């Protein structure tokens, strides 16, 4: 069987599998009742005691708080894995790049940075009674971090070692601390006393916002930038140098090679 025939056959097989799965899913969706309130009545029934007026926030941080804590643990594992794979190396603009900031971009970033911080703070606060919350606020903060890095204000890479690590784990630590704190007394893990629920949720969300933003930014740094810049040869060359020494590529080198006969 030729290469083209094999490819054609595999596409047909894949398409058949996909059509079968989509058909089964569609049939399952069509058999559902068109009106169902799900768990809405249950959530509404205990919303008063949850410490949040927004039902999604109440589910996320109170009724299913355990779930959200493990979500932070997943993020932490992902960031540890990504950092280990890239040896903690992040994007570093060279001297020329760092000095050569467009004045318009510079002004715009300086203008928008405080606005984005305020928006993140607003999203964090509004999560208590309307759509919003820690994850949305953290996404805005992380977006701000990416903007700062790309436009030549790489503040986050100055954080390293203990400071960076404590920022990354602070969300999980705050969640665990509150959870263990609630276990003092007759309550179980993450079962907040109704009187303190709002304060505790806000505390967790505030710490988690900064922590998630740092995690997202670190993931961005270690996974996305300089993705295709290294070829295999350069990698081997870099391995031979002592650890911790940055290989600065000589800009004259490729030009010299090209002009050589």
């Amino acid at each position, binding site marked *: 069987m030729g290469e083209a025939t094999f490819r054609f056959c*595999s*596409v047909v097989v*894949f*398409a058949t*599998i*996909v*059509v079968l*799965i*989509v058909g089964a*899913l*569609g049939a399952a*969706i*069509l058999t*559902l*009742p*068109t*009106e*169902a*309130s*799900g*768990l*809405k009545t249950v*959530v509404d029934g205990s919303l008063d005691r949850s410490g949040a007026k927004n*039902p*999604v926030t*109440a*589910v*996320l941080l109170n009724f*299913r708080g355990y*779930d*959200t804590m493990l*979500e932070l643990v*997943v*993020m932490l*594992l*992902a*960031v540890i*894995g*990504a950092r280990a*794979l*890239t040896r903690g190396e992040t994007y570093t603009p060279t001297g020329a790049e760092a000095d050569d900031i467009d004045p318009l971009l510079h002004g715009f970033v300086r203008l928008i940075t405080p606005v984005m911080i305020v928006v993140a703070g607003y999203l964090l606060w509004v999560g208590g009674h309307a759509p919003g*919350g820690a*994850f949305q606020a953290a996404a805005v903060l992380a977006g701000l971090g990416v903007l700062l890095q790309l436009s030549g204000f790489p503040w986050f890479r100055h954080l390293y070692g203990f400071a960076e690590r404590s920022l990354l784990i602070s969300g999980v630590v705050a969640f665990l601390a509150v959870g263990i704190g609630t276990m003092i007394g007759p309550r179980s893990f993450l079962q907040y006393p109704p009187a303190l629920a709002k304060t505790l949720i806000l505390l967790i969300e505030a710490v988690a916002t900064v922590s*998630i933003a740092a*995690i*997202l930014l670190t*993931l*961005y740094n*270690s*996974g*996305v930038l300089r*993705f*295709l810049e*290294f*070829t*295999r040869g350069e*990698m081997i060359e870099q391995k031979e140098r002592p650890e911790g020494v940055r290989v600065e590529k000589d800009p004259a080198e490729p030009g010299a090679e090209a002009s050589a006969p």
Partner: protein
Amino acid sequence: MTQPILYALAGAVMIGIGLFGAMSCAHVLRKMIGLNIMGAGTFLVLISLARRTPGPVPDPVPHAMVLTGIVVAVSATALALALLRRYYRETGRTQLEPAGDQA
């Protein structure tokens, strides 16, 4: 057919598109994009099925689950990108080798 059901069916189609991409593309980055489209389809199904409540307010539990899912999907994608980047740097390839064809 009501509007939520229509959106849920669109989500099922998205799952199909993503699944096809993840299965048929050889480049790992394309597989990852396919898996992400599949995830987005799953979120669309969940969100639209949560809207079947009689009142104007949807069921909050699927919404919270989707919020969790988005964050986990983003983290997993970033880890996969870091893995792919390392794989590319070590081997110079962007495709997984076929089984039994160890170089």
